[in-house]
């Protein structure tokens, strides 16, 4: 058996080979991760619940199965973390809210169930912004600098991944909550097409904007994870019966003649200079390996964040209507205010937001007609400091919500698949993300381009000091 002390740096694709050939023990690997969580997480605060005994027991089971020749695939024996809005049978699922402090689901969410069937080891539950309705994920800190937020709402997933406290994590994304923390923590995360992954058993923020997806160290790992997560689910009527391709098998590294749409408006407006430089360098790197950059004009997105908020607030306040009557004081002040406002949003505002949404979706369809993907910064800046309530870039001052959702939310509105991959660092050493956006249900192309970028760069091989 191999020495596992440095294995936390490896990706799933690499460790799976060693697990399948029995040169790496799932039990030893799980113990190593649990030890790292015990040592590092008291500073990072990314885990809500650590399932030490369950994880060791599942790892022993995986080891037995593999030894008897029943290898289930690349997630068999691999320790992962679950965002605390995904139901886990018999395990407290708090959504990081006092409202759900003692909620113990009777069944697994569909995604967790699929991961268990694939043989993954669940290390525990990681933090989220309360009910995924925000971008700072308190009390979790950013692994690259403990004075900064990990972004959110999948901030626990992002921080735990960056610090090497799991090999993958689940996320959810309503206005950027997978991609923003992926960018802020120097890891990868994909928001698949709306309807690609089941949300059954995942606490609702907004039925029509929520997306479930994976976060990981490499794009190849995302391909493996998405392959397990994707597919129609009778328990989730939003899922679509669209064939799930072999994502990992499509990672050829060949992106010759792929057309990259580079926005000439909106996505490079009011961006920190080091973010723009990193993203434009990334586009040049993609061109150097065969892609063709094509300037594109983005439809008018003024008001898109207000449409997103009108929809999210209205739907969230419907989901929490009873709790807001019975125990409103249990919500954090910030969440409670948004839910109160959601109850008082006019039906005509909600309907106009949904009508505008369709127009935005159709406008993006036209933009995407002559290109394969759009490339943009994931965020206009890097992770904000803890306690920072606004961000100033040039003359533009924005709320945390505004700056976090500005480049991500248009793809929750349009439902298009979008990935964030690391593409550089700020002068302060904080990670920067490149967003690649594809056509509906074409995650395959998004992943292929992102993986080709990853092959030709080294950004994903940097680790924060807290992890080492």
């Amino acid at each position, binding site marked *: 058996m191999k020495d596992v002390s440095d294995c936390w740096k490896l990706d799933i694709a690499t460790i799976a080979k060693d697990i399948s050939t029995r040169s790496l023990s799932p039990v030893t690997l799980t113990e190593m991760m649990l030890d790292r969580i015990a040592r590092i997480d008291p500073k990072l605060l990314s885990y809500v619940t650590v399932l030490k005994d369950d994880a060791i027991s599942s790892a022993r089971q995986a080891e037995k199965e593999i030894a008897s020749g029943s290898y289930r695939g690349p997630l068999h024996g691999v320790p992962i973390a679950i965002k605390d809005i995904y139901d886990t049978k018999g395990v407290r699922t708090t959504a990081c809210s006092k409202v759900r402090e003692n909620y113990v689901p009777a069944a697994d969410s569909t995604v967790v169930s699929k991961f268990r069937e694939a043989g993954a080891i669940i290390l525990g539950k990681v933090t989220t912004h309360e009910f995924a309705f925000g971008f700072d994920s308190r009390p979790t800190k950013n692994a690259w600098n403990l004075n900064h937020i990990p972004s959110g709402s999948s901030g626990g997933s992002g921080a735990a991944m960056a610090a090497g406290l799991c090999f993958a994590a689940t996320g959810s994304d309503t206005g950027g909550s997978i991609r923003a923390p992926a960018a802020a923590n120097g890891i990868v995360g994909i928001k698949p097409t709306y309807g690609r992954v089941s949300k059954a058993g995942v606490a609702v923020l907004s039925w029509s904007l929520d997306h479930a997806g994976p976060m990981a160290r490499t794009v190849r790992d995302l391909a493996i994870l998405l392959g397990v997560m994707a597919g129609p689910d009778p328990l989730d009527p939003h899922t679509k*019966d669209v064939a799930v391709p072999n994502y990992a098998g499509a990672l050829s590294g060949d992106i010759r003649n792929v057309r990259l749409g580079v926005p000439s408006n909106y996505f490079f407006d009011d961006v920190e200079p080091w973010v723009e430089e990193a993203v434009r360098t990334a586009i040049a790197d993609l061109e150097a390996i065969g892609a063709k950059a094509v300037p594109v004009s983005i439809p008018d997105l003024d008001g898109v964040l207000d*449409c997103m908020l009108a929809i999210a607030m209205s739907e969230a306040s419907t989901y929490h209507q009873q709790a807001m009557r019975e125990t409103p004081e249990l919500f954090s002040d910030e969440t*409670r*205010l948004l839910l109160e406002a959601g109850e008082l949003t006019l039906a005509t505002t909600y309907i106009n937001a949904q009508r505008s949404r369709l127009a935005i979706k159709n406008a993006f369809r036209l933009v995407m007609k002559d290109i394969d993907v759009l490339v943009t910064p994931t965020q206009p800046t890097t992770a904000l400091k803890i306690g920072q309530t606004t961000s100033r870039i040039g003359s533009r001052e924005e709320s945390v919500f505004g700056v976090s959702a500005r480049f991500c939310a248009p793809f929750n509105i349009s439902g298009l698949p979008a990935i964030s991959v690391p593409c550089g660092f700020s002068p302060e050493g904080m990670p920067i993300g490149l967003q690649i956006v594809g056509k509906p249900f074409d995650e395959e192309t998004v992943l292929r381009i992102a993986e080709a970028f990853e092959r030709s760069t080294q950004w994903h091989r940097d680790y924060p000091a807290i992890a080492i």
Partner: protein
Amino acid sequence: MSKTEMQRDDVERNAKLLGLRIAAEHSQPIVSLLTEIRNNVLKKASALEGDAPLAVYFDAR
């Protein structure tokens, strides 16, 4: 269409009608948030054709 002229009293009265206990200090932030959202959504929607459809995600297949 004219801009919303919502006041704190409107928020408090509507919340009471709905049986919603809003936090005392939230009335004004709610007025600001709802006014901004309604006006911006209305502006966005005013660019649509009058019979532009409602986006539905229900799939009747």
